């Protein structure tokens, strides 16, 4: 006799997982109705974007078992793609003769470098912001996973690669804006809508992308490929003996994660109105790991909320140095506690509490069933 409590139907489990996502997205969309302050909404938009970035890490780490310590690299590539396009759209005030960005003029660059040319097309830039990080990740993934590098070394390699790109961007300042990044950007204009950083249009753009990323990531986890990826996280070598090309799956989730991070990067440039090498920095990349761990890396919503709330707290406290430093100290301690005792983060803790509450009325019924099962089994 099947136990009533242990198996929910497939559809109800789908609903249980989809519901938190839809609720969070609804709340995000409803925020402008509650917070009628453009300045505040802009700040919130910033944290929402960091939330998308953290969701992308959760996909790679929580579901795929790949701890990408250089997740910010994909984020940075996306942000620079958008920044380059928007820089080229600035009116000649910021652009030198021949359409050169100001910093190039100051660095005595004669002609627009070849890799800037395609970004004159906004369509290209929008596609590049998502596809370029994915391609880079796929190439890096091919390099790492085909040779069966695992565990710690993967993380070291992703971090080192990001630092290399960071250093290259800083070094080649005549072509990339170097240390200062790319500033003084035009506003994004698509289909007649101007996405000024303080406008509602931008906020709704971010909100839409939050919804899109969460749904795409969720959809992936629900496919069989998503299931295989989780099996790989669980026991990588065992999966091979069922016939799956493990490296191919790892490369795929790695690239998908990078694409979502790239999207977040593009949004970040719009919201912040600049792109800088810190977007590909160790500080940001490791912060994402902290947010993801604390929020719950095996939960897309958990990771999202972890980022929004923690980054938001940091932002809110940035007014006072003392508060900020203390907050960071507390975050460090919380992070250590989570690593030691709560591998599934606060979301996992919430889930466990929920399960415990939901199952208590069935405790007595379960014992009776337990006895019944033993008798059945011994015939």
């Amino acid at each position, binding site marked *: 006799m099947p136990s009533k409590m242990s198996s929910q139907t497939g559809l109800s489990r789908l609903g249980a997982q989809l519901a938190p996502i839809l609720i969070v997205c609804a709340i995000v969309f409803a925020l402008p109705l509650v917070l009628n302050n453009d300045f505040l909404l802009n700040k919130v938009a910033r944290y929402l974007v960091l939330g998308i970035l953290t969701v992308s890490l959760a996909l790679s780490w929580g579901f795929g078992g790949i701890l990408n310590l250089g997740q910010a690299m994909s984020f940075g590539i996306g942000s620079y793609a958008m920044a380059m396009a928007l820089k080229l759209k600035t009116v000649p005030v910021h652009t030198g003769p021949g359409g050169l960005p100001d910093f190039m003029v100051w660095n005595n660059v004669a002609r627009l470098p070849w890799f800037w040319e395609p970004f004159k097309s906004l369509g290209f830039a929008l596609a590049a912001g998502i596809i370029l990080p994915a391609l880079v990740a796929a190439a890096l993934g091919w390099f790492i996973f085909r040779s069966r590098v695992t565990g710690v070394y993967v993380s070291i390699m992703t971090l*080192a690669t990001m630092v290399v790109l960071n250093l290259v961007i800083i070094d080649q300042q005549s072509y990339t804006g170097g240390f200062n990044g790319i500033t003084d950007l035009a506003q994004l204009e698509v289909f007649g809508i101007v996405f000024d950083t303080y406008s509602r249009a931008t906020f709704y753009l971010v909100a839409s992308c939050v919804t899109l990323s969460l749904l795409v990531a969720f959809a992936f986890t629900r496919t069989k490929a998503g299931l295989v990826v989780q099996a790989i996280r669980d026991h990588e070598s065992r999966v091979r003996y069922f016939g799956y090309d493990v490296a191919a799956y790892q490369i795929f989730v790695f690239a998908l994660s990078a694409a979502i991070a790239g999207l977040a990067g593009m949004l970040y440039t719009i919201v912040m109105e600049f792109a800088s090498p810190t977007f590909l920095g160790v500080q940001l990349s490791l912060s994402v790991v902290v947010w993801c761990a604390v929020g719950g890396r095996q939960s897309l919503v958990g990771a999202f909320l972890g980022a929004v709330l923690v980054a938001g707290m940091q932002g809110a406290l940035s007014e006072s140095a003392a508060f900020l430093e203390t907050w960071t100290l507390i975050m460090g301690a919380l992070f250590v506690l989570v690593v030691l005792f709560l591998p599934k983060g606060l979301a996992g803790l919430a889930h466990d509490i929920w399960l415990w509450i939901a199952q208590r009325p069935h405790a007595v019924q379960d014992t009776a069933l337990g006895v019944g099962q033993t008798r059945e089994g011994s015939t």
Partner: protein
Amino acid sequence: MDQFIEQIVTGLSIGSILLLVAMGLSIIYGSMGIINLAHGEFVMLGAYTAWLFQSHFGLGLLASLVPIFIVVAAIGWIIERFVLSLLNNRPLDTILATWGVGIMLQQGVRLMVGSELRYVQLPQSLSDSMDVFGLSVSSYRVFLFTVTIALFAVTWILMNHTTVGMKLRAIMQDRSVAASFGINAKRVYGLTFAYGAGLAGLAGALVSPLKSVSPDMGTGYVIDAFMVVVLGGVQSLAGTVASAFILGELSGAIAFLQNDTVAKALVLLAIVVLIRFRPEGLFTTRVRA
């Protein structure tokens, strides 16, 4: 010819600093499998302790070296006991936990001492320059090089010619077998981590006169130290020495030809490629699977 010698000397100088910082990391990683991202903070703590002794107790750098070692080693021991010992067989989690501890240490220092730059004086006796192969080199740098080699020798002797070192090597080979012979792995781990931390603290104290002391000075060192350890091979002290000086020379040479940034980028790239083809580093012998 002169330029060549100058290159070598610069490389040796950079290398000795790298080795100083990487030695503790290598021992910790090699023997315990712990990737200590807080290592940079131990360096930072050593530097701050040196500053503290100097500004509040008037103690010179040379005199305070031993107390600094003890202080930072004690902090390391506490961290191992209360955080790391809970993370057996979870190498990825040790990266995260030590990163968190590093954040806490950095913030602790910021809150207690403030973020302004601090300065440590060069010892009077070493503030002039010496003649090395016809070149004028700062005496302090020569001192640094000498101390580094001496510390390496001490560490080597400890590892290979003392009972404690033997116990550690036994545990590195096979923890459960070692335990069945009565070796208390927990205690040995605690001492080892403390020793590694103490070495880092010494490194911090010794480099503090060369640059300013700030709460975030450790981050740069930890990444460099990692590259040294990864290149040199886990569980190989000799490998660490070799790779520290190789990387020192390499960085120096590339920095001379291009610039610092490119040097760092190329070295990192080389390491990424190396890990892919030879994850055990350049100097480890293949251990039986």
